[in-house]
């Protein structure tokens, strides 16, 4: 997906720029809160293949942490919900063209994205994490010896972070998750750095591994996004998320959707309620 994106975006910009310069963007493409209520249906973009955040079960129903939240939003808004299956590369585009009202597809808040869409309050934390074997748990990257290698997947934030902050650690880079996993299981390196959700899930599924560092570097947040300028919907969402925070909704959501994958242990690491970040 990353590769497609890398080729696609420049081409797309190239293709669209001809039009954007020439043709007018007549009106705002988003629907206000009132318009959504009147229509009786809200369009929400979610992943359909990112278990356990957004996926489709064997009966064709959407499930997961993002979806659990989306269901609640629609219920409190008093409207029906129409799920749209989105991909990582087209989430922004879906919002900007008004084809969905809200994106709840595990959307990480970044500076670049903030210029394109408006983010509501966060509902999840993500950061990097490091997993290592039980017989030598790496609790801090400072503990590593000079020859101790760390595995990363090329092109991930983990790679960038380690090169920048720990230039002395020898890295073993792999192109795919599968090859990195195989190398790690064969013991070619003492630790594996990746998104913390990934390393936690890995340690849960594979016996003999521990996440020594569940949080490395600065953490990012995951938040719902609406079209830029759609204040009525944004404000309602923020109030709603604060209200849900009071009833510890996202803790309950975690229990229902994420606990099977990540276990009880990481609930406080991953969940954000209301305004609380960190």
């Amino acid at each position, binding site marked *: 997906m990353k590769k497609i994106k890398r080729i696609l975006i420049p081409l797309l910009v190239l293709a669209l720029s001809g039009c*954007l310069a020439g043709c007018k963007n007549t009106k705002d493409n988003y629907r206000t809160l009132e318009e959504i209520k009147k229509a009786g249906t809200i369009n929400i973009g979610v992943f*359909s*293949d990112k*278990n356990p955040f957004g996926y489709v079960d064997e009966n064709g129903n959407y499930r997961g942490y993002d979806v659990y939240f989306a269901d609640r939003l629609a219920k409190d808004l008093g409207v029906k919900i129409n799920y749209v299956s989105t991909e990582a590369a087209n989430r922004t585009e879906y919002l900007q063209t*008004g084809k969905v009202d809200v994106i709840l597809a595990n959307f990480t808040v970044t500076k670049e994205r903030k210029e394109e869409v408006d983010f509501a309050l966060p509902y999840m934390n993500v950061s990097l994490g490091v997993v290592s074997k039980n017989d030598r748990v790496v609790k801090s990257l400072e503990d590593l010896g000079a020859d101790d290698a760390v595995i990363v997947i090329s092109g991930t934030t983990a790679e960038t972070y380690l090169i920048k902050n720990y230039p002395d650690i020898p890295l073993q880079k792999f192109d795919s998750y599968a090859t990195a996993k195989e190398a790690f299981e064969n013991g070619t390196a003492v630790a594996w750095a990746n998104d913390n959700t990934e390393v936690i899930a890995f340690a849960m599924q594979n016996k003999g591994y521990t996440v020594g560092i569940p949080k490395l570097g600065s953490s990012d947040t995951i938040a719902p996004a609406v079209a830029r300028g759609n204040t009525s919907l944004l404000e309602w969402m923020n109030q709603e998320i604060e209200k849900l925070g009071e009833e510890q909704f996202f803790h309950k959501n975690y229990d229902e959707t994420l606990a099977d994958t990540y276990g009880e242990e990481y609930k406080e690491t991953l969940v954000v309620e209301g305004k609380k970040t960190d």
Partner: protein
Amino acid sequence: MPDLGLDVLLKGNNFFRLLEGLLAAVKISMVSIALSIPFGVLLGITMTGKNILVRFLTKLYLEFIRIMPQLVLLFLVFFGSTRSLGWNLEGETAAVIVFVLWGTAEMGDLVRSALTSIPKHQYESSRALGLAKRQTYFYIILPQTLRRLLPLSINLVTRMVKTTSLVLMIGVVEVLKAGQQMIEANRMNSPNAAFGIYLVIFILYFLVCWPVSMAARRLEKKWG
């Protein structure tokens, strides 16, 4: 027998969902083909014309569509039409538009090359027999062209069926996306499902494309 995770397909509606996805893919490609063939024949005839401007414009269209990856065209039509024209197309409609644009261009070029491959004496003999220009086309040139076209256009049909896998990028859940959803939903309890499901998808694509190739071969034999 290695564990291919095929049990995933038996859960709930999974197999039915895969077939539903296949139907979506087949529908898009068949509608597109049905429209591309007549448009392509017209385009091909136009491309053999003498007018330089027309030849230039059709060539430009053909090259534009050829150079653009289908994925970019899909994005342009699906999102671009909303941005600049305010149209809110369904994913399927956008897909058909793109596939018809593409199919017409490719088909047009095939028709053009088939037309120019008809020896000049065919035109001249037909004129000598007193047939009008239009009659020459209908009775002499087109029937021969169509026969030459058949193997080439079948190739286009199967390519189109396979390229429908891209429409998942504009929110259409076709067979590949449905498969990916199943693989991911069972990531924990059936990690090998990717093998089994991709195998089944392979067989499904084959079952769609194979009869088309067979029918083409029979026609070719009959006409040959």
